[in-house]
């Protein structure tokens, strides 16, 4: 079973037998490497044992986790609203689309690091910088996915809906948004993973709170155990958020065969 299928089926959260075996193999290999590292000429701190990583995990500050989660969720909600709103406007107006789309493509081609540098150079507030970077990276993904999905709604359904003469608001709320919901949820899954990575880099560079900041501190202290511990938290966080989205997906898309 491919990892994506595990995620689709929500098996990541339930720890199937294969998942446990796979994780155990990794832990054993790491622990063996940790034991033999000095003999192999690798400094002992470079591959810390799980006991040491466990100690680091115990010292995780939950306020930093909460801050990072809040930044990710907040920025994703803003990106979603902005992206879907602009996609709706662009779907309604070909002229607007012809002007906006090249700009969106340009935005999507800009590397994350450049956005972070722009944010640091342009803005003062840390939260504003991070929100700006996340929205600049995730907003276009929501926009393009929503626009493509709207265009993909079948001509038959659009014709049926129009034959009942809905208002513009009804047309979108009764047909377009429910029709593109599966694609929007997929966009959320993609953006969650993207946002977790981007927020970490953004915090690493310009924040005094959050997981990214704690990673920067760990790096300054040459503490691989702390880096490992915070990385584990990040991965667990991503799986947790994906599990939440999968649950929402199952509820909202229960009509699917």
């Amino acid at each position, binding site marked *: 079973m491919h990892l994506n299928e595990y995620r689709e089926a929500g098996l990541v959260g339930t720890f199937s037998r294969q998942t446990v075996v796979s994780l155990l193999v990794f832990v054993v290999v790491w622990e063996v490497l940790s034991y033999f590292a000095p003999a192999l000429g690798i400094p002992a701190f470079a591959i810390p044992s799980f006991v040491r990583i466990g100690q680091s995990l115990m010292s995780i500050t939950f306020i930093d986790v909460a801050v990072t989660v809040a930044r990710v969720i907040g920025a994703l909600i803003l990106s979603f609203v902005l992206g879907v709103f602009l996609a709706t406007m662009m779907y309604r107006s070909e002229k607007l689309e012809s002007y906006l789309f090249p700009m969106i493509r340009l935005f999507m081609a800009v590397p994350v690091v450049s956005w972070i540098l722009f944010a640091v150079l342009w803005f003062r507030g840390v939260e504003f910088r991070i929100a700006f970077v996340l929205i600049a990276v995730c907003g276009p993904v929501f926009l393009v996915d929503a626009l493509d999905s709207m265009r993909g709604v079948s001509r*038959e359904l659009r014709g049926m809906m129009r*034959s009942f003469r809905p*208002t513009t608001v009804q047309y979108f709320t009764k047909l377009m948004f429910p029709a593109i919901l599966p694609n929007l949820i997929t966009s959320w899954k993609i953006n969650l993973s993207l946002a977790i990575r981007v927020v970490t880099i953004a915090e690493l560079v310009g924040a005094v709170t959050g997981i990214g900041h704690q990673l920067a501190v760990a790096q300054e202290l040459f503490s691989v155990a702390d880096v490992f511990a915070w990385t584990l938290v990040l991965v667990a966080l991503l799986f947790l958020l994906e599990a939440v989205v999968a649950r929402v997906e199952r509820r909202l898309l229960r009509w699917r065969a």
Partner: protein
Amino acid sequence: MAGMNDPPPIAVRSLRKVFRQTTSGQSVVAIEGLDLDIASREVLAIVGQTGCGKSTFFDLMIGLEAPTAGSIVIGGKTPYGDFDHFRGQIATVFQQDRLLPWRSALDNVKLPLELIGVPEVEQRERSMAWLNRLGLGNFIGAYPHELSGGMRQRVAIARAFVVQPGILLADEAFGHLDEVTAAELRETFLSLARESGSTAILITHQLEEAIGVGDRIVVFGRSAKLLADIHVNRWQEGEYAVLREAIQATLQSNEQDARLNRP
């Protein structure tokens, strides 16, 4: 019209529709100079071969397309120009059921009532009544993928009738179903249309269907040219075979068969 006794007659005058092909830029004449009057409460069947403009006429009737020239006038209003005026007054049944897959049977039937602002309780009552009437009382919570083709088309019929429209349009609505289901649904549709006092326009390529349900049959030739206008009640049931042959000959030659010239 909804709630009124007699829906207004429909007058089609010098109707022309030309499409410009996106890729080649060439113009295609779908309908050329069509004149047609449809009386109130009439059940009209439109037959014609593929590509004769039947579906274009359907789209023009429901106001999804604007005529290139000429007009369709219903009670002094045009379906395209006065689009909102006909909200809840024209209903359609399509070839495919076109149900919204994320809505249950009940919610699909409720859709047109939601659009015209009927209160929630009344939406539910009216939709339930129509689903019961069409034999789907036990399937109100079922999603479209859980229903058979015939059941889905019943839901689509309920969705069309629930607003009590003055004008009902059906575009090859039973053509994709097996003969037994199609005949059953055709009969149901016809009796409901007559009972509700709606003007019904059925577009079909099946002559049996046209002869079986229509008060009147109009035969479209290429570019929606009106080849024949037949009042079925002027034909005895024993003459239906001749009628069918004459329509068939008309369709094949694109010229009216002399046998259809019946005063």
